[in-house]
């Protein structure tokens, strides 16, 4: 009977195991295999094994390091931006006022709307000729002498992408932090008040320590997500070459699958290292 049950147990976890092997393990191994080969586009011609050639080429390629730098700046600024903005808004909305549910709903909008519709909205808002942003800055306020292409000109595109990402993703931090805020017992604040604590004192000695864990988790999640962020960056402005965009162009426009695979492997190792360090030293799990 026990053995029978054990058998049933294996059968029941089989679909999950198959899914993980098929959807996670197989792609990782295939990717590693690709990164060691010169991949031929024509299926009739076999691929040639070149060992670590792609890795050497990538690590000595100045374009790769430029993209790496872009990605690091992008990730750091958006992680800091989304977390701080989320924290600020959560604290503001963590009190009773009329229409609180509606305001909270509106704040979630950028996060739940499909990214492509947001991108088109922004592109139209910042359109170099017809856009509202230019109209206000140039015609109404006369702050600028002439219209600017805010989103597609390379010198502004990077900032546009960062601002867009923060605006789109801060609601997630907001939601997580707000949920945690509401579970901080009011008695803690009352006790502090009796001891004569100011608002800042309460924030630094009660609120922040209570939020420590949720903010730590948010930072690591957002770092992983944004380091690999492709859709928002590429749709808004392909001229911002973060690493995922760089990989995409290597693999699909230059038809160099091997090199693309090598880059993703390098990224994988880098992010894995970061996570292990962060979990051990910062989160202290």
């Amino acid at each position, binding site marked *: 009977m026990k053995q029978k049950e054990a058998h049933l147990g294996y059968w029941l976890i089989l679909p999950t195991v198959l899914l993980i092997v098929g959807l996670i393990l197989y792609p990782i191994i295939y990717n590693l295999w690709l990164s060691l080969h010169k991949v031929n586009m024509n*299926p009739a011609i076999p691929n040639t094994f070149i060992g670590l050639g792609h890795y050497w080429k990538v690590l000595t390629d100045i374009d790769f390091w430029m993209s790496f730098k872009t990605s690091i700046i992008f990730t750091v600024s958006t992680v800091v931006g989304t977390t701080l903005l989320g924290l600020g808004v959560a604290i503001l909305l963590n009190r009773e006022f009329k229409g609180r549910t509606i305001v909270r709903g509106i704040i979630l909008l950028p996060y739940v709307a499909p990214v492509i519709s947001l991108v088109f909205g922004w592109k139209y808002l910042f359109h170099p*000729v017809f856009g509202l942003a230019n109209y206000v800055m140039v015609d109404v306020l006369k702050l600028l002498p002439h219209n*600017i292409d805010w989103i597609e*000109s390379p010198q502004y595109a990077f900032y546009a992408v960062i601002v867009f990402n923060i605006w789109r993703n801060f609601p997630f931090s907001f939601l997580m932090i707000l949920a945690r805020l509401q579970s901080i017992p009011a008695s803690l604040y009352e006790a502090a008040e009796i001891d004569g604590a100011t608002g800042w004192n309460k924030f630094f000695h009660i609120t922040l320590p209570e939020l420590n864990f949720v903010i730590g988790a948010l930072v690591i999640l957002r770092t992983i997500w944004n380091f690999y962020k492709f859709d928002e960056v590429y749709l808004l402005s392909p001229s911002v070459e973060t690493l995922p965009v760089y990989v995409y162009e290597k693999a*699909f426009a230059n038809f160099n*699958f091997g090199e693309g695979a090598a880059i993703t492997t390098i990224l994988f190792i880098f992010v894995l290292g970061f996570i292990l360090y962060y979990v051990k030293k910062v989160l202290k799990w």
Partner: protein
Amino acid sequence: MKKKLSLIIAGMLLMALLIPFGVLAAGKTEIEFWTTETEEARMAVIKELVKDFEKLNPDIKVNVVAVQENDVPTKLAAGMAAGMLPEVVEMGAENILRLGAEGMMDVKAAGQIIDELGRDDFYKGALKMVATPEGGNYAVPMHGWVQGIWYRTDLFEEKGLEPPTTWENILKAAEAFHNPKERLYGIVIGTDKDSYARQTFTQYALANNARIFDENGNIIFNSPEMIETLDYYAKLAQFTPPGPNTWRDARDLYLAGLVPMMMYSTYIMDDIGISRTGYKGAIVENLVDKTALANVMINKSSATFGQIVALGILKGNKENQVEATKKFVKYLMSDAAYIDFLHMAPGGMNPTRRSIAKDPRYLDNEVIKVYGEKAAEIAAGLDNIGKFGYVKGKVFPEIGKITSQFIIGETIMKMTEHGWSAEKAAEWAQKQMEEAVKQ
């Protein structure tokens, strides 16, 4: 009892997974057709044509997949890597050459179709654009467009300017009209990293005898002629709207009356002629009467640029699939089906077969009638268009590797957005192109 239930659920899941495969095995020959006509209205026409075809050939099923023109290289790469390429594709000559260079086009099938439809009926220029270096054809040319500068004759007359047919006249006119404070711009040309920039730039390069390949297939993008062209192009780009521009800017700003000149293909014809077909809401009244096309550009020589879109059959299909595909291509290239297809973008898509160009059914269309004689003149441009991949009768399919990376557009952007000199940009592009061709 519980076990039974879980077995039933597992069984149902399995069924759901297997059903699609069961349908596939029903005995029909299935072919996949990739088209770059992604607009909803055009897809509707194509689906209708496919439905009629399937009615005529009940044993064939055609799956239509729409692919954005700029996405074609990436989709092809993904398809090749996955071994899931379509049977037949409708795409521009560069992409056809690109596939041809990889040895993936069924040259034999294409040749048979051309012969069966009548080789002499095709425009020579159209066949040349998809020719193999050995003299065959990678694909069957289906329709084509011609590019040029569309300009406002009324505004040019007002200022007493000459038509924009020479480099000098173009620059002079752009400068005269450019007034960014009033949101009026001189001209729209391609300055973004895309196909449009390559297409508009090519015409300037050809007019200056600048080439990407020499006769032996060496890349000569850093030649004095090319540097001169880049330099001129960057100068002209000063009189364009802010930021990188693409075809959408050209179309929108011209129809809104904010630029007097822009480069576009014949696909703009129905947009310009639209007020004549009963449409209300045009920003510039009777635009078609105030518009002319300068499709020949003159500097050191005269140049026409355009594109041939062809139907290509991919190699490696089963015998019955090849036969089904041939039937489908012939169906799309003949009679009413062909004319319906061309009428999706009247004036924009010009036939590659003489007999169809003269067919009264083809000429019986509102937009084509609006242009009258002009339409025939424009279509005739198809016979002598020049391109980077063709030098003195030789074809260099490697051009597909360069166009798929949008190197020319990026080179232009280096100058217009990052302030590079023409020399520096040309050297950079030379290196990029050499690397691209090597791969």
